[in-house]
């Protein structure tokens, strides 16, 4: 899981063009939106595309999206849980 979290941090920085952010700056438990990295709704859509493109898993509903995209850790948990199925 830790390895996936670190990989996700790098992928998020690249996908969202967070040029001034390093993986070490991202707290895996912190909210990605609002206070965290200050991401917006377009970033949310881009993260949904990232999960589907890199890992092949679709987020099905807006409610699921809120849970999955809460933090890097929750994204990693979603991917790990799907991989176990």
């Amino acid at each position, binding site marked *: 899981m830790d390895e996936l979290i670190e990989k996700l941090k790098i992928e998020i920085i690249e*996908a*969202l*063009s*967070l*040029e*001034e952010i390093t993986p070490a700056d991202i707290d895996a438990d912190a909210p990605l939106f609002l206070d965290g990295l*200050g991401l917006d709704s*377009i*970033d949310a*859509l*881009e993260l949904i*595309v990232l999960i*589907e*493109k890199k890992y092949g898993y679709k987020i099905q509903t807006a409610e699921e999206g809120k849970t999955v995209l809460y933090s890097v850790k929750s994204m990693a948990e979603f991917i790990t849980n799907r991989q176990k199925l």
Partner: protein
Amino acid sequence: MRENIIITKYCKVANNEIIVNGEVVFSSESNLTFSEFVKEAYKFKAMAYPKFYKMDNLSKLGTIATEFLSDELNCENVNGDEIGIILMNSASSLDTDKNFQNTINDKDNYFPSPAVFVYTLPNIVIGEICIKHKIFGDTAFFVSEKFDVGFIYDMVGDLILNQGLKIVITGWVDFIDNEYTAILCVVKNIENSNNNNNEITKFTIESLKRLF
């Protein structure tokens, strides 16, 4: 009255060089790509505006050019709704349109990028400038093969003389296939102005022709 309309500052961005009022204020090595050049210019201006990195190239071009004019926008007694932006180019948003097309060309690798899609209109560059500088006045983006001096002169003049704008940023912002040019100028109405204005030239068709 037309005599009270002046150009106070202009900025040209082309060939990895930024020129303000005829003087080179920033340049980088000529072999740098636009992305590399504009990142250096961003750091040079110490912009501290991370959203800049998310913009498409056309928006980065317009935003960086405006940054070099921004001191002319902070005037006493001028509100955000009294500032407008009128821009023009020939390539529209085609550069970004093509980038977006590349994300949907392959049916087996079909991942349309929302972050690219939102820039597939040329007037988004105006939106980015308005957000950054809290501008709420009239704006428009026109696509024309060449810079239409007469049209811009009439439109900007009308906005200032008849629509109540005190400042208009106008000019050309064009980007396609790593070829780019931005020429922007700040046009002001100095009637009833208490500010000390840095007049570069009167706002006339002849002066616009010289600049563009």
